[in-house]
């Protein structure tokens, strides 16, 4: 990766982090009347994958999709406005945090039904294959989603039809408070994918370089028409499943586990690394942070100043056309 690209990765991860932190901060004022699922700690995956996608490549995601939305180039103002359930939000206030969309950058929407986006993304990839439009579809989901039958049904189909789809499982070890060990006999989700004959890899999801490297090859393979690829990215979410709590101790996640993972912060590590190779300086870093902070300030102002939908709109869009 050249220096420019390295910095871009850093910037985008930082942007996601700072946006999420600001959301967490503002959430207590009860103006964002929507359930939120923060991605803090998981930023490297969205960034590492999405930097290898073109704007018109498709993206399908889940309840936890702020990071992917931003990494794919989604409009920040519209995202924050959606969290404030405003008419200017990306879903006009009908979706909330769990239902983000920005079709201008190929993001086709997110599902709050676990495993629900997997067939949809697979179907978009089918369309690309039938149309020969050269697009690749990226489908994100968690270690919980792989429990669902849609995972199996979709991967079998994608392998069979050699669809241009990249499956990314963000294994953060938890589905709400249920650990992956409470739900699977083994620890290698990627082996499931492999059994369909899909090239499958388990990688460090907190290392944006590793993720990007794997995603780059995967996207190329998809683009060449050789069929799907599966990436299991090991990571950890810093926040509790929902909202701004931490869910540590007291029957929740063990403090040691939590501390261990915080020490593996994908952004902290990457920043250090960039400094060590001379790509990042304190000054540059500050500049980046200031620029992001400005964008965030604008986005929240935009959102808060935007009108809410009006009751008369209730029945709009039940049907299209």
């Amino acid at each position, binding site marked *: 990766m050249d220096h420019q690209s390295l910095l871009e990765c850093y910037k985008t991860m930082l942007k996601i982090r700072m946006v999420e932190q600001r959301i967490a901060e503002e959430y207590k004022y009860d103006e964002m009347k929507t359930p939120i699922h923060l991605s803090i700690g998981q930023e490297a995956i969205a960034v590492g994958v999405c930097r290898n996608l073109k704007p018109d490549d498709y993206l399908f995601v889940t309840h936890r999709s702020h990071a992917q939305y931003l990494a794919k180039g989604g409009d920040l103002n519209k995202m924050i406005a959606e969290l404030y359930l405003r008419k200017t939000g990306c879903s006009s206030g*009908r979706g909330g945090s769990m239902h983000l969309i920005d079709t201008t950058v190929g993001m086709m929407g997110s599902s709050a039904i676990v495993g629900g986006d997997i067939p949809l993304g697979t179907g978009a990839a*089918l369309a690309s294959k039938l149309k020969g439009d050269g697009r690749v579809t990226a489908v994100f989901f968690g270690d919980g989603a792989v429990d669902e039958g849609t995972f199996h049904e979709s991967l079998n189909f994608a392998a069979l039809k050699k669809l241009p789809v990249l499956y990314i499982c963000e294994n953060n070890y938890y589905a709400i408070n249920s650990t992956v060990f409470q739900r699977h006999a083994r620890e290698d989700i990627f082996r499931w994918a492999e059994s369909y004959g899909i090239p499958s890899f388990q990688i460090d999801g907190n290392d944006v370089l590793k993720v990007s490297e794997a995603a780059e090859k995967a996207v190329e393979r998809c683009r060449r028409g050789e069929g799907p690829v599966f990436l299991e990215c090991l990571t950890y979410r810093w926040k509790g499943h929902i909202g701004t709590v931490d869910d540590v101790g007291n029957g929740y996640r063990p403090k040691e586990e939590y501390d261990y993972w915080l020490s593996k912060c994908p952004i902290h590590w990457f920043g250090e690394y960039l400094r060590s190779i001379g790509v990042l300086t304190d000054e540059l870093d500050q500049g980046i942070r200031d620029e992001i902070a400005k964008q965030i300030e604008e986005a929240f102002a935009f959102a808060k100043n935007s009108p809410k939908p009006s009751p008369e709109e209730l029945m709009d869009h039940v*049907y299209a056309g």
Partner: protein
Amino acid sequence: MPWTTVQVEKLGEFFIRGNSDSGRILSYKDALHEATDQALARDPRVFLLGEGIDDPAGVFGTTKGLQEKYGKDRVFDTPICENSLTGFAAGAAMAGLRPILIHSRMDFLILSLDQLANHACKWNYMFAGKVPIPLVIRTVSARGWGSGAQHSQCVQGMLMSVPGLKIAAPATPYDAKGLLIGSIMDDNPVLFVEHRWLYKTTGDVPEPLYSIPLGKGAIRRPGTDLTIVAVSYMVVEAMKAAEKLAAQNISAEVVDLRSIKPIDEAIILGSLAKTGALLVTDTGNITGGVASEVAAMVSEKGFSLLKHPIARVCCPDCPTPASDILEKAYYPDSDTICARALEMLKQ
């Protein structure tokens, strides 16, 4: 847009057309085949998928030869995974195609309600119209020969409660073609309910492409004493019943609902304004079915028109038995309709 020049049926026109006009007689099955063939020919976005649709039998003849004609990319067999199949189709629709997904039995639709009800039917609303899903799901209800509890269900009633879904249920060959085209042209998920017992019925079907928009019923037989609102195969039984009732000097008007979501409220209320009596008959179980919805709508919006209690003639609230004897007891027919009509007109 490949569909802008298609003739769209006006309700008035239909009554003549459906019964006599073109002089070209096709079966319901062939009408479905022709509509599919013509849609594939006209619009490269249309494609067909489903379990066994390239089978030599071709979904009871309705897809026969289409793979040979349009290639394996546009007409293809799939693994057996109804829920995800629905998602594949919906995803492809999001990406601009117009899939037709076929379930050879309606029972299998039940496996797919997550992707249908939670996803395909909600997407347009959740995202404020940004990603419409023009998706047709053909589903065939079967009946008889001991098909039994898991191979004969008519669950259109269950599906009525899904916001964002449209449901077509043609009873005539003319409608089979026109509503299938109308469903393909529609920008929403449409459940297209067929019934095996209708496949051999024949009727007038014009050769050119024409489309019937969803939500319009049709009067199949005019009458003055009683309105029979019928769905899918029950239109046939209702027509027979009307004949039998006529012999007893009762003039029944038969309304073929044609689409069960949205319901053509106007045609029902209009008929009731004449007759003051309503019998609703559907192929599904009585409780929570289409007939219940029609009855509820009328008891709300047409109460003042009613001179008699409403009657529902549907399957009783039990799974389908395999036994031929029990099947006979289970399925209502024209005699059931007549008996219930007479009883109700006395009240």
